[in-house]
């Protein structure tokens, strides 16, 4: 346990000095700052006003940016460290492989989740200071959603990093994974449905397996409980889960995906060449 925490701390210290972390923090901090600057808390769109409007926009933007950011930076730094000889040296020290792998995941999780959460928290604190109403339920659920999303893509990133030996291959694979999920959000799903090649239930099933779509739908469900914007798909989802059930599914399913990928990554890491 001590070695795990030491490794996690080491990874955090290493990440805090990396350029990607600076850009990553600036992007999410910048998004919140821009949303405030553009007066989003004062505007009213589709009945949303105040911080809820800002949080909805923030979560939508985060869902677009966070997965690709987490995937690319994770595979780049893990595969890059391996290529540069960091693994060769640090793994010559007496650290168990379990402590090393899970410590690295823990450290990385802290560094990717904290800036995203801190930006949202800063928005809430600013709203309290400005006497703007804070939708606490929405804030806590979105925090859970972000935590789940970060874990999901971190797990996938770690699996790719252990399977692909080189940085280039790992980066390409990570990008393809993200692109596939992105395409299955709308474009391909809509395309196959329009062409009538698959029954709607299959298309909805694919959407429910795609973590990106799961997040998107769950974020929508917070302000559109009937999921009217989804159209007929909403009936399938709500019949299957109910509103509360779906929101719970949106938290647990990505966590399970991330955990499964991380576990597969660990088992691969244990059996393969380390540097």
């Amino acid at each position, binding site marked *: 346990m001590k070695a795990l925490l030491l490794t996690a701390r080491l990874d955090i210290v290493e990440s805090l000095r990396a350029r990607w972390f600076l850009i990553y923090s600036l992007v999410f901090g910048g998004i919140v700052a821009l949303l405030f600057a553009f007066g989003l808390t004062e505007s009213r769109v589709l009945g949303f006003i105040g911080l809820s409007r800002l949080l909805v926009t923030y979560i939508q933007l985060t869902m677009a940016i966070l997965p690709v950011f987490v995937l690319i930076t994770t595979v780049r730094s893990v595969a890059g460290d391996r290529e540069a000889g960091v693994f060769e*040296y640090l793994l010559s020290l007496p650290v168990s492989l379990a402590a090393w792998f899970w410590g690295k995941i823990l450290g990385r999780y802290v560094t990717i989740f904290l800036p995203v959460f801190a930006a949202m928290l800063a928005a809430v604190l600013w709203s309290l200071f400005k006497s703007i109403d804070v939708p606490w339920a929405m804030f806590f659920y979105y925090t859970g959603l972000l935590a789940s999303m970060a874990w999901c893509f971190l797990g996938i990133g770690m699996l790719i990093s252990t399977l692909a030996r080189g940085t280039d291959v790992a980066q390409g694979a990570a990008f393809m994974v993200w692109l596939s999920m992105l395409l299955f959000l709308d474009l391909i799903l809509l395309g196959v449905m329009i062409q009538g090649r698959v029954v709607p239930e299959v298309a909805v099933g694919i959407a429910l397996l795609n973590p990106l779509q799961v997040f998107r739908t769950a974020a929508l469900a917070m302000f559109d409980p009937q999921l009217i914007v989804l159209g007929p798909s909403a009936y399938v989802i709500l019949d299957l889960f109910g509103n509360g059930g779906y929101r719970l599914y949106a938290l647990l399913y990505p966590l399970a995906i991330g955990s499964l990928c991380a576990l597969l990554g660990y088992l691969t890491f244990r059996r393969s060449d380390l540097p």
Partner: protein
Amino acid sequence: MIRFENVGKDFKKHRVLDGVSLEVALGERIALIGSNGAGKTTLIRCLLGEYTHQGTVTIAGHSPRDERTRVLGKVGFVPQLPPPLKMPVGQLVKFAAAVCRSDAECIRAVARRLGLAVDEILARPFNRLSGGMKQKLLIAIALGRDTQLLVLDEPAANLDPEARHIFFGLLAERLDNTTMIISSHRLDEVASLVNRVVEMDTGRIVLDDRVAEESKLSALFEVHLTLSRADAAIAKTLGTWQFVDRRDGVEWHGSVSGPDRLRFLGMVSRYVGLLSRIEMQEVDSRVVLQ
């Protein structure tokens, strides 16, 4: 102490280690030499439990792969190329000391003996240090704890002559209870440090021989050189060995570590046409270094 039994390793279809068998006893100091691609690094990585392989590798009867923490706790490793770590020096020392269950102060003490004032660079990122400073710190991490096996990959390549001498002295303090494997491209770089030479070529051991030990690792020699004329090239080279010009670039004086003699003479041989006199005399290193 160390046993390699029919160790093989393939990268895709390329055979990098081909049935290597080797036994190394406690206290042996092995020069692992061979050209690029001979299999030295791969063998070291198998020894450190970092590569999967065919055959078996054991250190004191234990597998470095399956019993990492138990085995690697007694192994100090200095890589040829320092890793590009961004963390501060203090963090690296603390981490190494904690996982090795040793005292960070011991690491700092060894670094100080090598001429590296760790306390002044604790906040500096490791990758911003000079090559020599990185090497000294990695040596200090390897030697600043209780190890039974030292695996050193070109360990003194970036050290200045004085630090090399201190480094050799540190190794000399551990001769009786430590096994050393020193990897190098060239035998003359490490010949005086070792008592056994193992040469590898295309993944096989092609030579396994003993080396006569005539000189102590901590020995120091005073050297006087007289040149037939002053020459800028040799003056620059002697300057890197911290030699002092005693008369118009013709008379030079300095000291050379015992294990560095062959390397020094190899360097001097490049200027043999200019050499009119050379004198080497073993002295008490404690007196000279003071």
